[in-house]
């Protein structure tokens, strides 16, 4: 059975650096995803994710297992770094969506793979127009998320992309549970309004 994050942190606090490496390997992908979805730039997201892990490494002795959940702590640090990053950026390049959307996997393959599949006549079950529609929908969704105000974007990403509980999101955002729930509902309604015109065409 895999060790919990708290057990790994305890091992790390006792001087076992391999334990921290295990934590990095376990959490780097969701963390990069969270930051990339928030700031909209994959390269910067990787830098910020690295900064997050380094901050955690430096502050590891102050982490008290049981008092706070490891994931909550990690996202809390990442959220603050994202806020700083957004603040430091000019409005000009506030959100660079292309870097994220062109590099990610869609329908289990990358863009090139989709194009190859679309031109393959042998695969009768494959419907190119469905794949293109899906790709367009995902791109529109990502753009709609990017346009959300910061206070709605954070909880929406944490809930619908990262799959955290309302309680965890409340801890990360330092908000009451009720406020978190209403912000997520509000964010989803805003997203629905942004995607409305696109979805009605499908």
């Amino acid at each position, binding site marked *: 059975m895999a060790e919990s994050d708290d057990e790994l942190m305890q091992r790390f606090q006792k001087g076992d650096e391999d334990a*921290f*490496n295990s934590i*990095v*390997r376990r959490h*780097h*992908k969701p963390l*990069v*995803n969270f930051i*990339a*979805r928030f700031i909209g730039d*994959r390269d910067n*997201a*990787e830098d910020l*994710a*690295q900064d997050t*892990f*380094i901050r955690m*490494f*430096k502050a590891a002795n102050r982490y008290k297992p049981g008092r706070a959940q490891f994931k909550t702590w990690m996202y809390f640090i990442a959220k603050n770094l994202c806020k700083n990053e957004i603040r430091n950026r000019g409005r000009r390049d506030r959100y660079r969506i292309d870097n*994220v959307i062109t*590099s*990610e*996997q*869609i*329908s289990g393959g990358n863009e090139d793979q989709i194009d190859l599949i679309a031109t393959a006549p042998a695969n009768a079950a494959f419907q190119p127009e469905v794949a293109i529609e899906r790709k367009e*929908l*995902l791109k529109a*969704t*990502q753009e*709609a*998320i990017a346009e959300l105000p910061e206070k709605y974007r954070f909880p*929406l990403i944490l809930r*619908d*992309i990262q799959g955290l509980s309302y309680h965890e999101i409340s801890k990360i955002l330092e908000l009451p549970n009720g406020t978190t*729930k*209403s912000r*997520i*509902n509000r964010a*989803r*309604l805003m*997203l*629905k309004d942004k*995607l*409305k015109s696109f*979805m009605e065409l499908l």
Partner: protein
Amino acid sequence: MNCLQAKEYFSAHFEDTLDKQILHQLKSHMAECASCQKEYNLFQASVKATQQLPEIDPAPNFVPLLLQRISEETIKNIPFWQRVYDLFKIPKWAIGSVLILVLAGAGTFYYYDAIFNAETQSNDTIVYPDNISAKELQNVITDQFFPRGMEGSDLIGTNSNQPMQQQYILKRVSYTTPSLAGGL
């Protein structure tokens, strides 16, 4: 329930966390309000689209780069006292070996220097009387190196027909013990 109130419950309805009474009111409202039903359908679709956004794969060198940065940070952040303390973590046999080599080197140096001093400078000590004037001191030194009766042609290496040549006596000099006899 009106349309505004219904929208407040969309998330809870989608996540199936509404209590029975409110769920019943919401369903009743949506059964009568085509607009709310349509809005809820769009709501569901947009949430599902968000949830299905594909994962972004970090670059393959993300973890190696991060671990390298961590090791660099670790070295940079070691305080001075910690570095001193870490010196004592060097194996005892290594420290012992270095100490033995240093002591052996120093011992050899001082031992040979003492033998050398004993050979070259044991008879060179000149005791000068106290409370002596400068003139008397000069006479004493002259007597020491040029004893009476050896003036003029009697001096080593000179004769009456040749100009006096100064005689230099090379002496081995200790590098550690000051010698009154001088080096030349």
